[in-house]
């Protein structure tokens, strides 16, 4: 360990909810997208799941809202270092969408893609079992555009770049295929508890 002379840092907070190397951003919610925020209305929004599924399907705004509502209350973690505690997102569990399309036995991974063209890859196991959502509400209000509204993917147990904003679809694959940041040096899975920030971590 190389100690930095004269550096003491902030008072230590013993917070078991904080993954290694992260800090509590409090009320801030920094925006980190590399592209222009798309001008997308709920009427323009669609969500599709295809690839290795029994029945590919596209939902529009109303069809997606007809699925059973589900809420995530908990924490989110961004690879740049901030974590945000006790956030509340409303939407639909991804399981409800996947139940309709029925993933094939060979499907192991997914590429999530946005209406902006952004992509990110995830193991299918990280998208099932009540751990992923399509979210359109934040704190009881419509999700703001700069945070991915009208609707974004929400996979809160992974670093937040996996939670693709302006979600347009999932393609299920039988292999892992790097998405936008993953092709730009970021980790394939992005588990904050193992500090999987960059490929090689």
């Amino acid at each position, binding site marked *: 360990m190389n100690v930095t002379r004269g*550096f003491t840092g902030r008072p230590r907070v013993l917070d078991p909810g904080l993954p290694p190397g992260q800090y509590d951003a409090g009320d801030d919610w920094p925006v980190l997208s*590399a592209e222009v925020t798309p001008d997308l209305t709920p009427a323009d929004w669609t969500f599709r799941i295809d690839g290795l599924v029994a029945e590919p399907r596209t939902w529009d705004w109303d069809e997606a809202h007809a699925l059973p509502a589900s809420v995530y209350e908990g924490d989110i973690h961004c690879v740049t270092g901030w974590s945000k505690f006790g956030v509340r997102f409303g939407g639909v569990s991804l399981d409800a969408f996947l139940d309709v399309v029925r993933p094939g036995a060979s499907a192991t991974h997914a590429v999530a893609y946005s209406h902006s063209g952004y992509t990110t890859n995830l193991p299918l196991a990280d998208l099932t079992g009540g751990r992923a959502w399509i979210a359109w509400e934040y704190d009881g209000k419509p999700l703001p555009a700069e945070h991915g509204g009208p609707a974004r993917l929400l996979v809160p147990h992974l670093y937040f770049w996996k939670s693709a904003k302006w979600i347009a679809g999932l393609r299920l694959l039988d292999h892992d295929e790097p998405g936008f940041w993953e092709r730009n040096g970021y980790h394939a899975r992005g588990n904050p508890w193992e500090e999987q920030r960059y490929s090689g971590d």
Partner: protein
Amino acid sequence: MAEATTVTEPAAAGATVTEPTGAFSPPTRFAVPGRIAVSDRAAALWQTATLTEIRRETPTVATFRFAVPGWAGHLPGQHLMLRLTAGDGYTAQRHYSLASPPDDTGHIELTLDHVEGGEVSGWFHTEARPGDEVAVRGPLSGFFAWPGDRPALLIGAGSGVVPLMSMIRHHRARGLDVPLRLLVSARGPEELVYAAEYGAETTAVFTRRAPEGVPVGRLSAALVAPLVAERPPGGWEAYVCGSNAFAEHASRLLVEAGQPVDRIRIERFG
């Protein structure tokens, strides 16, 4: 679907200039391709950076020069992760853009704004002195990189001008003749980072106080639209860097002026 293109630019050692291809391309309106493939090895490795020099830029901004003998080389626009370690093992890590252009001096420069109450920038601005050692890993992210191959329209505010200055310095150091323009926004003349270094490529905008004869005002369509309209051969690649509010404002002006969304790259400092 993107063709497999390889840009053969004599770039920095260690940075391979290829457009990453072959991955799934979604059937959506736009996808901004990465500019370079980054070295996983360089990104994974923590190295010691020894502070060799501190230069004041403005009352709240200073440039810090480091010796990093094993530096893999970078392209303008890339950033690194910097880590400070306290005696009890506690660490704080932040991203910083590379201010220096690619060169083979074994040195890199970062330019840091002193953020009120900032843990890392506070240490740099109140404690750091030559000889101090910190840890860095990088360069990271090929997305905002500019290899010097395409005409570049740069828009930055505050410390967001740091990665853009690396591009300007690279352009000058290599004597490149590909068009390059910078629109830089600062609150007042004394807050303009790198003020003495700008040349004919730069237009400064002052939002609170301006020098004699220069109007005070926000970055506007009247400034952005004529530059976008110049449309050099091959078109502009636009690079926007600053706070989120500034990035939203500037990128909207670019889109309204007709700049294609898939040719706008944005880096938000939060």
